[in-house]
């Protein structure tokens, strides 16, 4: 009798849940110690609906096919000097912030999902997390390979892993992920898979990948396409895990709501860096932060939360503050990065007139009355040879670790600072959103290593000022750091463009 071939569904069941068993030598609670202490009640793990029925053999097959295509294009990009075809060398600041800030997160996500993939006692959830763990490792590797070509020609990319553990602005993404993966597995998956990858992911990928395409960066664009099918799998997992928790027990609802409040706000704060990248670092603009926020959060994100209303979930706290900040967030953040440029591993500059007009068109009156004169004043200083750097360390938010530059939700002329206190020590937060997060788990956030405090305590290689601190990050002054205009990156770019044009047959004819 001919062997019966298993259908896709049966094959998936046999290769995932079919390999699982109830332990008998040791109690299940001791084998899986992490999936109950957060308070999430799971009545029936079998009710987990596998969001994508992918077996390991099929996974290897798909991924290796994608890999072959990706590396063929990366090779062609390198052999054809693809770095000369980008819009402008200022674009490299966007690549640098991705490499320094986001790529290390992919690696940490790999670790976080490996942990979650061990911690859940339900086999369906475990398998989904294990595959995502491998995806994330692959994303870290492929990003590094895509960017490595730029490292041969531009500064600031030589020591990203070292910088990741030391640099003040990289403690923003770092602390985000460390907060997530030091939580239990359910909170980790809610924070990364749902809040970040499902709700906010378009705000990360759209600016970077479309931004790369608009600016002629074929390497990053190709990586983006290669990661896209993985990302849709990750989003499905995010939605599934949240619905699963909400359907399993009504006691889970307030716990999940508190996590959504927290991770919406943390995700939004982290995206401030991305918004600033899209508004200021992309020489050719895709859309502005305000428009992206309106489409991806105010339309799509809010509709999603309304769908979750049937489980008793409401919109995340303080989402309306983000709506008020959308007019000013990126302008406030750019002038912050600009002035702390002596300790940044990327270049900053004042936008040109064409860009200022684009801001006026997109942001209207507030930009024209407040931020444009501020930028023009800084340009005036630069033209007098007095390019402004703020070399005094700033106050930093104890939760999101962003320097406290945000203004009051209803008053863009007044800085927003919130004081919190725990066991006799005061701390500062940038917003009511971060203050709420601190007060919910103060024992966690008092442990945060805040970079300026670290410097003043003498724990940053003995650095006593911003220049010694930058050296401790392995940044060379005015080569890796500082103003774009006149930097080695800028000078090289002008020279390469001149030679490239001279060498092209069109010009020669």
């Amino acid at each position, binding site marked *: 009798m001919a062997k019966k071939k298993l259908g896709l569904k049966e094959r998936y069941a046999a290769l995932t849940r079919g390999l699982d068993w109830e332990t008998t030598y040791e109690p299940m609670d001791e084998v899986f*110690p*992490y999936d109950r*202490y*957060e*308070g999430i009640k799971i009545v029936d793990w079998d009710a987990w609906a596998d969001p994508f029925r992918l077996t390991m053999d099929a996974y290897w097959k798909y991924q290796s096919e994608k890999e072959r295509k990706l590396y063929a294009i990366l090779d062609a990009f390198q052999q054809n000097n693809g770095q000369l075809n980008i819009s402008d060398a200022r674009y490299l600041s966007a690549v640098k912030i991705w490499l320094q800030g986001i790529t290390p997160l992919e690696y940490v996500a790999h670790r976080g999902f490996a942990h979650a993939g061990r911690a859940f006692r339900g086999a369906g959830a475990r398998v989904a997390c294990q595959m995502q763990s491998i995806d994330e490792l692959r994303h870290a590797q492929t990003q590094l390979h895509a960017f490595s070509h730029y490292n041969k020609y531009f500064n600031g990319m030589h020591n990203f892993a070292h910088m990741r553990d030391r640099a003040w602005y990289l403690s923003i993404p770092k602390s985000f992920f460390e907060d997530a993966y030091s939580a*239990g597995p359910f909170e980790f998956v809610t924070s990364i898979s749902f809040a970040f990858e499902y709700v906010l992911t378009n705000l990360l990928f759209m600016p970077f990948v479309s931004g790369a395409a608009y600016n002629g960066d074929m390497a990053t664009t190709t990586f983006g396409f290669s990661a896209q099918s993985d990302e849709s799998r990750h989003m499905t997992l995010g939605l599934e895990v949240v619905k699963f928790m909400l359907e399993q027990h009504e006691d889970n609802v307030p716990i999940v709501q508190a996590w959504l409040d927290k991770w919406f706000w943390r995700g939004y704060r982290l995206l401030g860096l991305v918004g600033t990248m899209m508004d200021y670092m992309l020489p050719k603009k895709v859309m502005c932060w305000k428009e992206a926020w309106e489409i991806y959060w105010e339309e799509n994100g809010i509709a999603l939360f309304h769908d979750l209303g049937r489980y008793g979930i409401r919109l995340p706290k303080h989402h309306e503050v983000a709506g008020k900040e959308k007019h000013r967030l990126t302008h*406030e953040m750019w*002038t*912050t990065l600009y*002035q*702390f440029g002596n300790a940044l591993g990327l270049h900053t500059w004042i936008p040109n007139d064409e860009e200022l007009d684009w801001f006026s068109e997109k942001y209207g009156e507030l930009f024209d*009355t*407040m931020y444009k*004169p*501020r930028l023009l*004043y*800084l340009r005036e*200083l630069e033209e007098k040879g*007095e390019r*402004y750097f*703020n*070399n*005094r*360390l*700033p*106050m*930093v938010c104890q939760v999101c670790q962003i*320097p*406290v*530059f945000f*203004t009051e939700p209803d008053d863009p*002329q*007044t*800085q927003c*600072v919130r*004081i919190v206190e*725990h*066991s*006799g*020590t*005061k*701390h*500062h937060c940038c917003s009511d959103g971060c203050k709420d997060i601190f*007060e*919910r*788990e*103060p*024992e*966690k956030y*008092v*442990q*945060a*290593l*805040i970079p*300026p*405090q670290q410097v*003043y*305590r003498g724990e940053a290689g003995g650095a006593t000022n911003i220049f010694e601190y930058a050296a401790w990050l392995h940044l060379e002054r005015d080569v890796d750091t500082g103003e774009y205009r006149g930097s080695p990156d800028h000078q090289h770019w002008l020279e390469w463009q001149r030679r490239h044009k001279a060498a092209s047959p069109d010009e020669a004819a």
Partner: protein
Amino acid sequence: MSVAHLGPGYDFPSANRAEGYGGDINFYIQWEQHLLIACPSAYRAPPDMIFGDFLEQLFRPDYAVHPDCAQLDFGQCEWRYDQQPWQPDLGKSLRDNGVAHMGFVQFRSPGLDGLHGVGN
């Protein structure tokens, strides 16, 4: 609320407690309505430092970029400490004025309201 945790006790000392500063203090100052300087500034100083000396020797050079800075008369400013009204004595030390570790000093300078009429 507190952290959900496994095992007994989840409590750690603050990473930034005063003992880490060898007798000095870490505190913050902000000049309101002068957003050209993006954030409140952080300082480490001995608590015996005279407040007026701190303002002239450390604060003023750091804020010299702002055209209002040269005309700034600290005696005419309106002060707050930890967001409460406060009347410091410029001739006394930080300690005697009540400036402690992680304290937050803010001031307004009536008449010097930042650039462009919008607090820049």
